[in-house]
């Protein structure tokens, strides 16, 4: 049994919220730099080069990459030999978000009730996903999510007979409809299988997979590559103003499902695809 003080979780989450909003992870930064070098459209190239400057300014002057610093999504994989002390884990996570967003000059974008819509003024609560794994470590992933792209995300409850072609059509439809609203170049997270909520959660988690790393299942890897090529053939381009770079990656996760169903979740993210991971 390993004891971990929840204050340590708070401190890490606070730092990770600030880090995620000012520095892109290396995989994303590399993908953006490659896109800026290879885009064919002159206006598209200009936009991608502005986004390169934007990343530089964000890191050097500590100005968030985007003013929508997101709703904080936190994945916590907790080893089952860990015991937390010093308070409730969920409170510690939210305290980390509170400190990160207030002390880090991040925007507070969360309303307490979806219809009454009063701002909580500290960006809490986050959306927290716990899972229990083996061992005595805690893996924390913080992924602040902007809503320009979140609003364009979709769930399709396909029929099994629609098969892989139905899945492709669903992803392309979501991306086409998102267009300029989702701040392209986008990253597309897809969850296939499971249940209604499972496919959405897989799609969300797929966004946090390193850009450039493919699924280990051969046919899924092929599907990722085919979809990326077809999405980049849509012509939407950087900022939606035309070009070849509409998406940087399509990441797909799969799970067993029911004989009667084929759920597909498509979570769309912009080029500010923030994810920071720490293991403690």
């Amino acid at each position: 049994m390993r004891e971990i003080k929840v204050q340590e979780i708070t401190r890490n989450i606070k730092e990770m919220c600030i880090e995620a909003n000012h520095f892109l992870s290396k995989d994303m930064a590399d993908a953006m730099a490659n896109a800026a070098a290879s885009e064919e459209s002159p206006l598209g190239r200009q936009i991608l080069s502005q986004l390169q400057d934007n990343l530089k300014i964000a890191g050097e002057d500590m100005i968030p990459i985007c003013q929508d610093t997101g709703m904080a999504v936190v994945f916590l994989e907790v080893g089952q030999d860990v015991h937390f002390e010093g308070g409730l884990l969920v409170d510690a996570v939210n305290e980390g978000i509170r400190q990160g967003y207030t002390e880090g000059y991040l925007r507070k974008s969360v309303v307490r009730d979806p219809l009454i819509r009063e701002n909580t003024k500290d960006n809490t609560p986050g959306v927290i996903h716990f899972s229990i794994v083996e061992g005595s470590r805690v893996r924390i992933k913080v992924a602040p999510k902007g809503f320009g792209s979140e609003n364009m995300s979709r769930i399709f409850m396909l029929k099994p007979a629609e098969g892989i072609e139905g899945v492709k059509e669903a992803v392309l439809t979501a991306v086409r409809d998102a267009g300029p609203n989702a701040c392209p170049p986008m990253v597309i997270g897809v969850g296939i299988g499971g249940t209604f909520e499972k496919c959405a959660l897989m799609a969300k988690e797929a966004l946090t997979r390193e850009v450039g790393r493919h699924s280990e299942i051969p046919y899924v890897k092929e599907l990722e590559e085919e979809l990326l090529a077809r999405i980049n053939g849509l012509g939407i381009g950087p900022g939606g103003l035309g070009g070849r770079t509409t998406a940087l990656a399509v990441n797909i996760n799969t799970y067993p499902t029911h004989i009667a169903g084929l759920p597909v979740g498509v979570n769309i993210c912009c080029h500010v695809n923030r994810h920071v991971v720490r293991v403690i």
Partner: protein
Amino acid sequence: MKKYITVPIGKEVSRTLKAGDYVYITGTIYTARDAAHKRMKETLDRGENLPLNWEGQVIYYMGPSPARAGRPIGSAGPTTASRMDKYTPELLDMGLGAMIGKGKRSPQVIEAIIRNRAVYFAAVGGAGALLSKCITKSEVLAYEDLGAEAIRRLEVENFPAIVVIDSEGNNLYETAAQEYAGK
């Protein structure tokens, strides 16, 4: 084409702007997003006056992150314009000159743009740090209680934007994507 304009903007200037023009904007603009639009609509429905006269003015759909000490504003890029579509035709009919945002507009908004010889610009979404450098001054004008959603008066210098929908209704989002589709 590259153009430099000053705002507020008159119809004689909007008319010369064409979808696809790359424009640098200097002058005074105002922020307003979801909550401010809703409140303006409620004010109008009660028959009261808005906090400012929109004639020839420019709305920037934007809610900034907080400013660090010594800076006028935090990160300050555009938000999705379509969420304001429901309110926009009425403001255009009251003389609103231009809007800066990102993303598609509804057919009703496009009609109102044509009817009023207005213009819709896109700024680059997700470039909030860069765009903040073009803002030299920021002060809350109204609805302070809305926090990041308050109406702010901004002074901007060479703020980069692209004409997406011009006063004739030409729409760059449609024409530009077609040009690169299927390549």
